[in-house]
Every structure is written in C-alpha cells, then in structure tokens.
C-alpha cells in the first residue's frame, strides 16, 4: 500500500493501519518468539525495512519531499508501539534513520537532503557512524582525524573505531578536526564520507556476541571528500549535531519499552513449556523479579510518552534523554540477567521453543552489555544528569 492512499490516518486509525499491515506482512520466520524463527539475512532485513517504509511505518516524521510521510511524532510513537510489540529484528539501518537522517534534516543543504534521505528510507544506502577513535571514546573533543582543505574539497586522514556496520555501509557520518588538536570542541566538522572512496580500509572487530556485520576499525588515508559531502560549516555542523543528538537520545528506538515487554512475555511463555521451568513461575522470588521488570517497563513507557508530547508541543526536552537511556539500559540488563538465570534451569529435554528462547535471550544478554556503553556510557549519563538536569555546581 502506498503512502498516498492513507493521508487521513492519525491517532488510533493510524494504529489500526500499522497493526493490520504488520499482521498481514511480517515475513514467515522473522519473529524471534515464534516457531520457525531463523535469523534473517542482511538482504531479508533490507527488503523488510523497505517494505515497512512503503507502508508508512518508517520515515514517519520526515518531510514528504525527502521520502518521508510528513506525520507527527505521535504517529511515530504509535508505529513504534506496534513494531515493538512484535519480536522483529533490530533495524540494520538505525544509524542512517536515527542519527544521520535527523542531522541531515537539521543542517544539510537542500541538495544533500534530496540525495541522501530517500536512499536511507528506501534502504538503498546504509550508514555507519565515525565518531569514536582510539584516543577519543567518551571524550570526543580529543579526536585526531584531520580534514584539510584540498582545492574545493577535503582530504581526510585518521582512524575510527567501534564503527558499527562499516563493512555494509555506503556512507559514514564522520567527525573530523579542521584545526589543531588544542582547539578541543572547536573546528570539528561533519562529513558524509562515501565508503567506497579511495584510501578507506575497514577491518572488522570480533564482538563478544559474535554478531555478523558488527563493529569495525576504519582507517582513512588521505581520503578525498567533495564539498558536496560536507555537512554544515566546521563548528556549526558539530554544534547542530549535538542539539540533534540530545533529541535523538530521547526519541531513538522508541519501540524499546514495547519490545522489552514482548521479551518479558516471551520469557514467561517459554517457562510454561518446560517441566523444569514451570515451577519458577510459582516461586515468590522469581515472581517478585518478574513484577519488578514490569514496573521497570512501565517507567520506560512513562519516560518516553511525555517526551513525545513535549516535542509535539514544541517544548525543549533538555537532557531528559540521558535519564531515559540510563534507566532503560540498566533495567534491560537486570532483565537479561534474570532471563539467563531462569532459562539456565531448563531441563536437558526442553522442547524446541525453550531452546529458541535460550538462543534469543543469550543474544539479548550479551547485547545488553553494550547498552550501558554505546550512545554515552552509564558514567557519562550520570555526569550529564548531575551537570545538566540537577544543575549541580562544579564546586571548585
């Protein structure tokens, strides 16, 4: 169904559309909590996400001129609630959709928006994020990758690390320094570097969860980048990116709470299917931890919904994204530990559904280790909350 056919849908009628479309179109074997699940390939994920976009379930708030659907963040929330309720795979293009795209919308030229944005939504181009470096992790101001003027364009030299999906990406949202290292936050510029440019070498890094297409090192040796791929002016681009990032931290992967709930229900359903796990559901200590998880999930929901209303009303949300990210990531880790502990008690003769749940929750448990590290570690978030939410004085 093309977007043009549902211009009038908002609120609950939009929810009905999303729910019905998902029920009719999720490919067999794609739901991790259903029988017959197999880990989807990259190509299957791309095709699925492109289909979701065509049905109006991605690019919801982006302007129609750039391939989006021109709806409000409320519809974005509704779609995410429905997407989250199903055990669908994570987006293979979240850097493009939730980081590069919004930054381009904020600071890109008209020509850049038309060139980059539809390709992201149509899953023709995936992006990776080139911020972190060996000497600049949490402290981005220490980054050393240099961009120097070369005629009308730039030459970029340096090294990036923890670059997720670098091998499959068509472009890299890359942060580089145009002045001396002493300038710290000044002179940082953003680029949309084509990953097939000469001088780029990608070396995959094996992750603890052994995920295919995980993160990588990216080496840049005198890589030519045209001015048409520079995002905003030096300084300006970075400052705008920081503003966008503050909002993104609060709005990205908005389906989290509802996926979290899907995982909780999957765990309980799996326990019912094994004679050794069933008694755990009657055990007071496990019941307490399961209900604590449900309370955590209600908090995750309660944190995200007011942010949507605030943004729709045009109110600033400040550093609330740090509170949301910190709570969700730690709550999800607690839950992942609980799931591992419970499922580890399954009988050796557990049925296939329990084996499948063990596989899913092993992945979730390992992935959860990253959740308190990426997008600003727990320690960084605590610092942001102290500095910018509580406004504590420095006390020197």
């Amino acid at each position, binding site marked *: 169904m093309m977007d043009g056919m549902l211009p009038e849908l908002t609120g609950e009628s939009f929810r009905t559309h999303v729910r019905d479309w998902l029920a009719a179109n999720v490919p067999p074997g794609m739901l991790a909590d259903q029988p017959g699940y197999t880990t989807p390939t990259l190509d299957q994920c791309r095709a699925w996400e492109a289909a979701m976009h065509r049905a109006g379930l991605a690019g919801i708030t982006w302007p129609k001129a750039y391939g989006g659907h021109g709806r409000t963040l409320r519809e974005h929330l509704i779609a995410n609630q429905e997407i989250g309720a199903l055990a669908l795979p994570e987006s293979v293009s979240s850097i493009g959709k939730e980081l590069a795209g919004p930054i381009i919308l904020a600071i890109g030229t008209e020509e850049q928006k038309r060139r980059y944005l539809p390709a992201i939504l149509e899953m023709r181009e995936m992006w990776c994020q080139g911020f972190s470096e060996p000497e600049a992790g949490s402290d981005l101001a220490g980054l050393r990758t240099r961009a120097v003027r070369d005629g009308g364009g730039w030459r970029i030299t340096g090294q990036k690390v923890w670059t997720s999906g670098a091998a499959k990406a068509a472009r890299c949202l890359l942060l580089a320094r145009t002045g001396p290292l002493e300038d710290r936050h000044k002179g940082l510029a953003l680029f949309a570097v084509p990953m097939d440019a000469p001088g780029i070498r990608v070396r995959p890094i094996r992750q603890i969860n052994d995920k295919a297409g995980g993160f990588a090192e990216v080496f840049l040796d005198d890589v030519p980048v045209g001015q048409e791929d520079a995002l905003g002016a030096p300084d300006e681009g970075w400052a705008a990116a920081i503003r966008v990032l503050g909002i993104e931290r609060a709005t990205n992967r908005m389906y989290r709470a509802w996926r979290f709930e899907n995982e*909780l*229900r999957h765990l*309980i*359903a799996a326990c*019912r299917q094994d004679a050794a796990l069933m008694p755990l*559901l009657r055990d*007071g200590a496990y*019941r*307490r931890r*399961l*209900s*604590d998880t*449900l*309370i955590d999930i*209600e*908090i995750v*929901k*309660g*944190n995200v*919904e*007011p942010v949507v209303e605030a943004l729709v009303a045009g109110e600033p949300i400040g550093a*609330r994204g740090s*509170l949301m990210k*910190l*709570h969700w990531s730690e709550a999800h880790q607690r839950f992942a530990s609980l799931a591992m502990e419970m499922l580890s008690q399954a009988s050796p003769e557990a049925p296939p559904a329990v084996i499948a749940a063990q596989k899913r929750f092993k992945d979730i448990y390992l992935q959860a280790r990253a959740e308190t590290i990426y997008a600003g570690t727990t*320690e960084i*978030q*605590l*610092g942001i*909350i*102290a500095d910018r*939410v*509580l406004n*504590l*004085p*420095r*006390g*020197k």
Partner: protein
Amino acid sequence: MDITQGGLDPAEFADSAARAVAACAGLHAAGIAARLAEDGLLGMLAPEDVGGLGLDLRFALPVLQAAGAGDLAFPLLETMLLARHLAPVAPAVAEAIAGGSARGTIAWAGTARADLTGTVGRAPMAEGTDWVLVRTPDGAALVAGGDVTATAMISLDETAAEHRVALSGANPACRLDAAAWEALAEEALPLRAAAMVGASETCLALAVEHVTNRRQFGKPLVANQAMRHLLARQKLALEGMRGALTRATARPGDAVARRAAFLAAATHAPLIAEGAIQAHGGMGFTWEVPVHRHLRRIRALEAQGEAPRLREALAATLIDAN
C-alpha cells in the same frame, strides 16, 4: 465532559496547594482541616452537591505532591477519598468532611469482622477523629470515632501517626459495597505515589543543598564525582517515579499502569530518602534535619498501600493471566 473541569489545568493547583500546606505548619488537625477546606482542597474530588469541586483524580495529584513535599500533618488523602466515596451513601458526613467541620480517616490494614468487632490498623491520625472507615468482609463500614478505641501502633511515621483501631460492634453510619471499597483503594494508589514523589523531591533538594554548602578536604562535597553520581541516581529514580505516575494518570482505566505507578514510588522513594540521609553524613542522623520525617512518611505510605500484596497481584496479572 464535565463542565467544571473545562479550562482547568491540574498543574494550576500545585502553587496554591504548596501555599496552603505551608500555612498549615504548626496548626493542629482541626485547624489544618479548616485551612485546607477554605481552599476547597478537602472536597476537590467530592461531587458538588456535598460542597465538593467534582474534579477527577488528576487534580488531586499536585495537591498530594505538595502535601508530601511539605510534610503535611494531616490525613489529606483519606479525607479526599472519604468526601468523594461517602457522598452517595452518607451525603451529610461527606459534606462535613469536605467542609472541614468533621474529620475522618481510613484504616488501611486488616479487615473487621462482619459484626464490626475486631481490630484494624494503619489508620493515619485516628485518635480524636470523628469517623473511621474500616474494611469489612463485604466492603467497608463507616464507624464513629466515639465508638472505637484508637491507640498508637509501632510505626515510623511521626507526621501523621498511624493508629490501631479496636472496634466495639457499634452500628455503622453507612456501608460501602465491595466495588466501592475496591474503587477507593485503587484510587488511593496514584495519590500515594504523588505524595511519595513530593516527599522524594524535598529529600533530594535537601541533599543537593547540603552537599553544595558543606566543605571537606578544602572543597564542597558536590565537587566529588561519587557524590554527583549518587545524586544523579536519586534524580533518575525520582523521574522514573514521576514518569510512571504521569502514564497512569493519562490512562485511568489501566490497572497495571496504576499499580506500577504506586509500586515504582514504593520502590524508589525510600531509596531516595535513605540516600539523602547518607548524603548528609552525620547531620543526616540528627532529628533536626527533616529528611528522616519524609523517610518515615514514605515508609508508612508504602505499608498503607500494601506494596508487597500489590507486587504479587501485579505478578499474577503478568504470569497467571498470560
């Protein structure tokens, strides 16, 4: 759509409630009742025909929050709910309670026998009260204060002391059926959460003030990252409570959201208050630093809301109904 609520914003009650709570400092229960009734706060949830404002629960939340923040020595939550739920069955009593001329409370722990004998507990400020609502096997009954014996029970709360209420079998003034009692008890949950949010806000503000001003090793305590992160975690907990309560408020028919909001508060508010005592160091263990008063109140609210029973009820909803 209720006409009286058109154009009113619950947040507008926050300031006037904070002023009223501040004005109650040092007053005895009867004086507090009169002062709060003046502002319409006791009857805000009661229908207009008993002198109430006929507002929905959302409007009571900022008021309870202010009461929690200001450590109000009055069973405000109980008063509001009595005025609301007694109106259909005992309008004269409801009107007197909403108007501040009579005082009432609710015994949250235990169930009286059908003949209204036995002992119930956790009734805030039952001593000298005019009315006590007690739970019965088929709902609840309103008994006169003169027909019961209220004695202090072992409880942390020093602000609105909890009493044990011994019943004498006297005839009740009225009864609530099981559905009415259940509705009242469920409505109490977000109101308690609001009171705990308010008390936690005050505890965190006191902790921030202390670590900002107190100097050790040649610098304020707030210069230490350990202290900054402790306070950041308290803020995280506070905003989580608030988020769950906001969600429950927006979904009045959602029992899971409502119970989770209370349980989120019951989980996090004690930790915030205990953490605020820790942040105060030795000062935190003194009577004059008021954090302990809030901690006492929070623990009483947690017990009155039967947090352990509700946790199991939430688990049953999640696990057994799945």
